């Protein structure tokens, strides 16, 4: 099919919808089968229109039609039945408004000659029946094809069939709703026609009456894949297969200098020192990269840096824990990381924590969040990568989760009680957790008590009965941390991959769901299996990823690589996180930051408390630890950040510090060549090229003083994108 402009598709959707082809012995029409698809397809029940919680213009429908009873009542019974006129259907408000015959805030959505209009008209004329128990149910959606490979510019029509419990098969291609994850790769029309826009991979989601399915679309970059280079471990095999299929060629291996900087920043959040870089560059050991990875995993900064990440995720904060509680939690966190505790054990200790916070750090989990609902959301988000927030209030439109799932998960936490044991300090505040004799969670809609249930139990994914245990959290912890849990290990693997490669195998890295498929399902599966087989060993996972060739690729982009980074053909540069950047600036300048009430040698990555006041850290996006979303950490750039590096008196004071790196080098009468090399190593982690040496000397000659000139050079290096980015 030739490619057509999007506007043409949009108009097609309304005027030439396929004729309705329901053949049924039951006279019908059926509200769900015949009416709801019209409302959804026309956008009536979208979140921005009548599907919003407050409705629109006094008329409210359930979001995307998840509650047919409610919708029927809204159409037929509410507003004293003004919305439909069975005697003269065409005078019904629900036809006149969207047909553009009466003022309608949402515009003309159902022209009088459209099939949707006729469906509604017919339904009204036949008495506007509502949903009945005996109505046929939608049993499954069948979509063909499911895997599509298209050359750029080519198009393909999807076919969507609905199978009903009364054995009716209905072509609903015209009534399904389509969305593409990557519109610049695959555009999809309202009629279900996919057009390959540009190379890459996209998922097209097809939704119909609460069911959904995903079609994978691949559009190759070229026909000939370049040489992928040797494989360093199983990761590379999976990626190389994808590259070959899509005609992609990876970047060459990063040089030693780039690798040494990258792996330091990724594993320990710390720049390598000039001496460390020199030693690495000097070594002829063919295994020196693998050995460096092992060495870094044993450094004390490893514990600081990953404790910072977990502190962010678990939102450790003095406002919830108090100073002592925070110290207790941090001690547990750091000792867990130092001992490389299996992540299953780590999470079990959090979930099953009880007793006194000051004596037992993981109890903090139950002070950061206190209601069963919040605990359920955090548990799903952090440990499973599942976002449940939507299901608190409504059926998630793109997800399987219902309010039953949400409150079922919350019910595991219903018996938690906080006690003030008065054993220690903290007058008036609770600091102990224990299990109460009773406690329950009720569904806000029905008011019924909800029994605990694992996520996915309703879908038959976790079928077994939940055993009766003294601590209701026990079966939750067992199910959650099991190697067969469909989310737990996968979530940790995906997050870790995202931390190291700058983009998750599933992206966003904390949003695992059927409608957000990975572009690399086999790789994610293989890494997850390996992680489980190695006892949820975090260092093993980090080591495995860092030792892959994929991790060591250079950051160069070429037309044969994917610019979006979806296929990991090259390293994607990303800004250093706030704490890492501040430490890097201080290390390069040879000075120490003074945080309020903390010893001068305290580094920013080792701060356990996110409430420490620092303009630098706030400006560069240190999270406040108020949400479980990874997106809370600001990783973009903005004006204030740039101004603070370009033009701040504070930075100038650091450059001019009488005990700083520059002062020491100048006082030691270091030669120009050595000075320049040392400053390059201390900032960009590499030696200057001959041309750079020359340029620097020429620029320094223009400076009024030697010392001043070197201050300018160090300022320049700290402002280079090459310094501010991890690449």
């Amino acid at each position, binding site marked *: 099919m030739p490619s057509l402009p999007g506007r043409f598709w949009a108009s097609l959707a309304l005027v030439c919808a396929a004729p309705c082809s329901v053949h049924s012995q039951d006279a019908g029409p059926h509200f769900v089968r015949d009416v709801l698809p019209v409302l*959804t*397809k026309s*956008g009536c029940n*979208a*979140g*921005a*229109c009548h599907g*919003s919680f*407050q409705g*629109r213009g006094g008329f409210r429908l359930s979001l995307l039609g998840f509650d047919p009873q409610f919708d029927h009542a809204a159409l037929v019974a509410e507003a004293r039945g003004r919305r439909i006129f069975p005697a003269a259907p065409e005078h019904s408000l629900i036809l006149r408004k969207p047909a553009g015959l009466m003022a309608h805030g*949402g515009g003309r959505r159902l022209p009088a000659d459209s099939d949707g209009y006729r469906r509604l008209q017919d339904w009204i004329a036949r008495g506007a029946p509502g949903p009945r128990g005996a109505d046929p149910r939608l049993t499954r959606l069948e979509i063909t094809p499911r895997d599509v490979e298209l050359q750029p510019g080519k198009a393909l029509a999807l076919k969507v069939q609905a199978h009903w419990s009364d054995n009716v098969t209905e072509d609903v291609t015209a009534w399904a*709703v389509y*969305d593409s994850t990557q519109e610049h790769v695959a555009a999809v029309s309202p009629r279900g026609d996919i057009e390959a826009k540009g190379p890459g991979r996209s998922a097209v989601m097809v939704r119909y009456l609460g069911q959904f399915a995903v079609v994978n679309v691949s559009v190759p970059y070229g026909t000939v894949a370049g040489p992928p280079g040797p494989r360093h471990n199983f990761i590379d095999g999976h990626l190389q297969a994808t590259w070959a299929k899509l005609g992609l060629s990876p970047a060459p291996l990063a040089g030693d200098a780039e690798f040494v900087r990258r792996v330091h920043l990724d594993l320990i959040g710390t720049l390598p020192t000039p001496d460390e870089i020199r030693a690495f560059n000097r070594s002829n050991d063919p295994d020196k990269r693998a050995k460096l990875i092992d060495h870094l995993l044993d450094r004390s900064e490893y514990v600081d840096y990953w404790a910072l990440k977990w502190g962010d995720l678990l939102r450790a904060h003095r*406002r919830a824990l108090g100073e002592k509680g925070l110290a207790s939690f941090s001690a547990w966190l750091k000792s867990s990381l130092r001992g490389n505790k299996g992540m299953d054990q780590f999470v079990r200790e959090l979930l099953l924590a009880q007793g006194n916070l000051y004596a037992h750090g993981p109890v903090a989990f139950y002070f950061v*969040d206190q209601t069963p609902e919040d605990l359920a959301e955090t548990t799903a988000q952090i440990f499973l990568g599942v*976002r449940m*927030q939507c299901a608190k209030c409504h059926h998630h*439109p793109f997800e399987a989760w219902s309010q039953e799932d949400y409150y079922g998960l919350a019910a595991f936490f219903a018996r938690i009680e906080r006690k003030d044991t008065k054993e220690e300090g903290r007058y008036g505040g609770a600091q102990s957790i224990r299990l109460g004799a009773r406690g329950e969670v009720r569904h806000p809609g029905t008011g019924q008590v909800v029994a605990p249930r694992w996520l996915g139990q309703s879908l038959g994914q976790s079928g077994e009965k939940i055993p009766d245990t003294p601590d209701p959290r026990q079966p939750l912890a067992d199910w959650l941390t099991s190697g067969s849990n469909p989310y737990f290990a996968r979530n940790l693997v995906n997050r870790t991959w995202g931390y190291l490669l700058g983009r998750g195998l599933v992206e966003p890295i904390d*949003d695992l769901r059927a*409608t957000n498929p990975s572009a690399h399902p086999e790789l994610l599966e293989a890494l997850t299996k390996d992680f489980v087989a190695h006892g949820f060993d975090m260092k093993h996972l980090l080591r495995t990823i860092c030792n892959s060739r994929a991790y060591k690729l250079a*950051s160069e982009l070429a*037309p044969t690589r994917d*610019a979006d980074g979806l296929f990991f053909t090259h390293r*994607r*540069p*990303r*800004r250093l996180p706030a704490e890492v950047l501040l430490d890097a600036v201080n290390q390069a300048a040879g000075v120490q930051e003074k945080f309020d009430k903390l010893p001068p040698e305290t580094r920013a990555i080792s701060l356990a408390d996110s409430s420490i006041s620092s303009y630098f850290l706030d400006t560069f*996006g240190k999270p*406040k630890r*108020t*949400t*479980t*979303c990874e997106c809370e950490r*600001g*990783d*973009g*750039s*903005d*004006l*204030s*950040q*740039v*101004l*603070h590096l*370009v*033009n*701040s008196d504070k930075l*100038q004071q650091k450059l001019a510090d009488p005990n700083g790196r520059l002062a020491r080098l100048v006082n030691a009468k270091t030669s120009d060549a050595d000075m320049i090399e040392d400053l390059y190593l201390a900032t960009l982690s590499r030696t200057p090229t001959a041309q*750079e040496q020359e340029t620097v000397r020429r*620029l320094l000659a223009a*400076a009024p003083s030697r010392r001043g000139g070197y201050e*300018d*050079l160090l*300022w*320049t*290096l700290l402002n*280079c*994108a*090459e310094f501010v*980015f991890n690449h």
Partner: protein
Amino acid sequence: MFNLGSVKARNCDGVSRRALLRVGGLSLLGLNLPSVLAAQARAQARQPAAARRDVNCILLWMGGGASNIDTFDMKPDAPAEYRGEFRQIATNLPGVHVCEHLPRMSRHLDKICQIRSIAHRESGDHVAAVHYMLTGYPQRPDPSGQPANSVIYPCYGSVVNRELGWRNSLPPYVVLSGKLAPYTGAGYMGSAYNPLLVRNDPNAPHFAVEDVSIPTSVGVERTARRRRMLDELDVWRRRHDRVAEAVGERSQFYQQAYDLITSPAAIRAFRIDDEPARVRDRYGRHRYGQSALLARRLIEAGVRFVSVETSWWDTHVNNFTDLKNSRLPNLDQFYSALLEDLDQRGLLDNTLVIWMGEFGRTPTVNGQAGRDHWAYTNVVNLSGAGVRMGTVVGQTERRCERVAGTPHSTHDFAATIYQLLGIDATREYRGPDGRPHLLNYHGTPIAQALA
């Protein structure tokens, strides 16, 4: 990202900054930063008419919640425990009175549309109420003021930043305050749309703006030399600017940062010493007076939205003494000076002035001669561009406990502000998690306030 529902009409985002950078980053046609900026300028040219009129805004923020009953909504006939100690005086608007401690303001009521009908429900927590009033969205945060797992919406200034962009080498949104208060930033839109914060006190001798004014320890010449060094040595950036979105984005902010710190307009605007002594005296020789004056200078120079923050209105104790002795005289001075000055310079025609805080204060006086938080009544004053000045919209009941008649919601108020600023309030944006958010949740602009 998937769209929630199939209504795409609202998603016509124009050309977003990020999208432009993506174009700049991915194009092999050599689209570079200047052309990105040009495309952005074209995007701006497509803004609605009010925006092309270039409406500016000065927000006078009464942090803590100024007492409405002791300022602009006096209740002389209420019992003593309500009406308080102050008497009312007549104004240049017949039938409208203000507090006796606002004598200068009494001559400017013709330049104000007083809205007494805005009410909300957050009388407990300051920062939550700030979120209500600066974004329109009701939000219940945890006691620390940071909502756990809930969405932070962008405030008016950040929306202006995103929708209208830079002008004359000056950032669109500047906050004059000791530190950035919660909810005065861009929320889910990301820090790129946060304000430029001016922390230093413009009343201090040798006022300079941290990170903006070139530090004396470095100087102008050396700053220029450093910039040349950076241009020459940052080779890696040049290689990655066009191919890595994050790098290109940062480079754009470098361009803007240099534009700002070297902009003659900005340098002049911050040189508050250039202002004649009598003008500085007229505004008041204190942080707030000089901040209001600086706000006018910044608007003149090209900033679109300036927020002047005061924080001393939380008068739980000694309300009357404190108001009488310092707060009201200060306010009277700089608020009247600003309106007068803007009017005389013809700036009021295209500058919206908002006087507001997070809530009003209790109509009853408490045991410590103070008034506590009260969100059910409130006064918001609007002046300038597009405002029906010289009017009072809505009334409060006899004792100022509730709005008489139907109150306006914070969403109605936000819709009013967006209309005045020429921003389409029905726009939809995406948060970093992909969730769609309406800029304004079905608010209706307060028609009586609009000219």
